[in-house]
C-alpha cells in the first residue's frame, strides 16, 4: 500500500458503475423501500406507537442502515467475486505498482461508498413517506460509512473463501437476512428479556440501527460512545481479516 493509491481502484469501479447506475440503485434500494411501505404503512397503521414513535417512524432509520448493509455486502460478494474470478481484474491490477492491500482497501472503500449512497438516497426519500429526520442526521453519515466498511469487509471475507457464487447463499441467508430481522429495525431490542437483549446488542448492525434512530430524531437518551467505538473496532478487525484472506487467495 502506498498512501491513497487504492483510490485508483475506487475510480475504476466508479467508471464501471456509471454504466449500470440504474440497475444497481434499484437492486439496492428496492427492498428497503418496499419494506418501508409494507411494514410502515401497511402494518404500522394499526399499531400503537413504539418508543414514542409511530411504527413507520420507528422502522425508517433502521431501514436506512439496512440499505447500507445490503448495498455494501452485495457489492463485495457478487461484484468482487466476479472481479476476482471471471474478469481477473485483481490479477490485472497486481501487475501494476498496486498491491493486495490496495485492492482490498479500494474494494472495501468502494463498497462502503455505494452503501453510503444507498443510505443517503433512503434518507432523502423518507420525507416522501412523511418521515422528516432532524438535522442531527448529518452526523449519522460517517457512521453509515463505517458500517458500510464493516459489511464490505465481511463481503470481502466471503469472497476470499468462496468457491462459487452459491457460497454467498450462506452469507445472505445466515448472516445478512438474520441481521436485517433481528438488529432492532422492526422491534425494540430494549424490550426483550436480558439474555436475548444481550445477544441482539452484540450483533454488528444493532448499534448502527440504534444510532440511526437516535440521530434521525435527535433523541439522545442512551449512551452512544460505546456504540461508535464498538463499531469502529469491529470494522478494523473485519478489514484486517479481509486483507489477510484475500492475500492468501491471490498470492500463492
Amino acid at each position: 500500500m502506498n498512501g491513497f493509491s487504492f483510490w485508483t481502484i475506487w475510480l475504476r469501479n466508479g467508471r464501471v458503475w456509471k454504466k449500470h447506475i440504474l440497475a444497481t440503485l434499484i437492486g439496492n434500494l428496492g427492498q428497503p423501500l418496499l419494506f418501508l411501505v409494507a411494514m410502515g404503512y401497511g402494518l404500522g397503521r394499526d399499531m400503537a406507537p413504539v418508543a414514542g414513535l409511530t411504527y413507520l417512524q420507528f422502522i425508517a432509520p433502521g431501514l436506512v442502515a439496512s440499505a447500507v448493509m445490503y448495498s455494501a455486502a452485495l457489492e463485495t460478494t457478487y461484484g468482487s467475486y466476479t472481479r476476482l474470478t471471471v474478469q481477473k481484474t485483481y490479477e490485472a491490477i497486481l501487475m501494476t505498482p498496486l498491491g493486495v492491500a490496495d485492492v482490498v482497501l479500494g474494494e472495501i472503500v468502494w463498497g462502503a461508498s455505494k452503501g453510503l449512497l444507498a443510505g443517503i438516497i433512503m434518507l432523502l426519500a423518507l420525507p416522501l413517506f412523511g418521515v422528516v429526520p432532524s438535522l442531527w442526521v448529518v452526523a449519522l453519515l460517517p457512521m453509515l460509512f463505517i458500517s458500510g466498511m464493516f459489511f464490505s469487509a465481511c463481503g470481502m471475507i466471503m469472497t476470499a473463501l468462496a468457491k462459487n457464487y452459491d457460497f454467498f447463499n450462506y452469507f445472505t441467508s445466515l448472516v445478512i437476512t438474520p441481521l436485517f430481522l433481528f438488529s432492532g429495525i422492526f422491534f425494540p431490542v430494549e424490550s426483550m428479556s436480558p439474555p436475548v437483549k444481550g445477544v441482539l446488542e452484540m450483533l454488528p448492525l444493532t448499534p448502527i440501527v440504534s444510532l440511526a434512530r437516535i440521530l434521525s430524531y435527535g433523541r439522545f437518551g442512551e449512551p452512544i460512545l460505546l456504540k461508535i467505538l464498538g463499531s469502529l473496532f469491529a470494522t478494523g478487525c473485519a478489514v484486517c481479516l479481509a486483507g489477510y484472506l484475500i492475500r492468501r487467495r491471490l498470492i500463492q
Partner: protein
Amino acid sequence: MLVREREWWHDWPSMGYTCAMSQAISQPESIPCGTNSQAVVSVTGLTKRFGERLVVDKISFSIHRGQCVGFLGPNGAGKTTCINMLLGLVEKSAGEIRIFDLEAPRFHREIKARIGVVPQADSLDPDLSVEENLHTYAGYFRIPRRLARVRVEELLHFFALHNRRNEIIEHLSGGQRRRLLLARALINQPELLILDEPTIGLDPQARHLIWERLETLQEQGTTMLLTSHYLDEVSRLSQQVLILDHGHVVVQGEPRQLITDFVGLEVFEVDGTPSELDGLQASFEQCNATLERVGDKLYVYAKEECSRLEKILSGGGSWLRRPANLEDLFIQLTGRSLRET
C-alpha cells in the same frame, strides 16, 4: 499512419540503442557494455514448493538489456509459476530475484512500475470501452491525465485500434483484444515486457501484426521475456531461449547454436512401412545422424551435410528435407510424451 507510428517511437525513452543491439547479438557472458549492460533480470536458485510438490527447482538465469529471452517448456514445466514469482503473484520458497538491480519482492512496487505484462488470460475490463481500459490502467500507474491521453492516443494508433476506441470489450475480436492487452502493457513505457503466450488463439494476420509491433519495440531496446508454445514465434523474436522441464532448466543459450548442437543441421522426415523404414534405418547409420522412429515415420537428424542420405532416399517413397528447428530441439530435450494425462 505508418509515419505517425515511427514518430511516436522516437519519443520512447531510449535505453542505449547501440548497446542494446550489441547485447542482443552477443552471448550473455560477453563483455559488459557500459552501465546499461547489467542484467535486467537476474534469478539465482529460484525454488517453489506447493506443499510437497516441487514446481520450480533451483532455477538460475538472467536477461540482459535489449534481449528477448524465450521461455519454453511443456505444460506444467513451471514457466508460469516462474513468471508469477517475478511478478510477486507467487511467493518464492527459496532463491534470489533481482529486477533492474532491485531485490524482489521487497521492491515490487518500484519494479512493477517499470514492467509491462501481457497475461495469458484476458483480464480486460469487459464493461469498459477500449479507451477506458487504457485510461484505467494508466491510473494504476499514476500516469498524469494529460500524459495518459497522449499515450493512449499513440498506443491506439500503434495497434490499429483507433477506430475501435469506443467499443465495449465484448464486441472485440480475439485479435483486437490481444492487441489491446499489449497496448495496455505498454501504457507505462516499460523497460521489461513479459509476454505470456501473446498470440494464443489468433489467426496468422493478427499474429504477424503483433510480431511486427514486438520487433519494433525490440529495435527500441525493450527487454522481453516471452513464453509461447508457438516455436516459430519464439524463433522469430528471441535471441536466447531457455527450456524448462519438470521445474529444471534443461538448456539455455542462443537458439541456432542449441539446435545445431543438440539436433543437427537438417532433418529428413520419411514415411514408409515398418520394413521399408527398417531398411533405411540400417543404411542411414553410416551417416553422422541420429534417428528416431515415431509410428510410421522415421526422423533423421543429420549432424552434417550428408548427400548420401538424399541419394538413398531418391529411390522413391515419400520424404521431406528441411532445416532443423526449435521444435526439433524442444521435442528432443523434453520428449514426445504428453504431460497432461
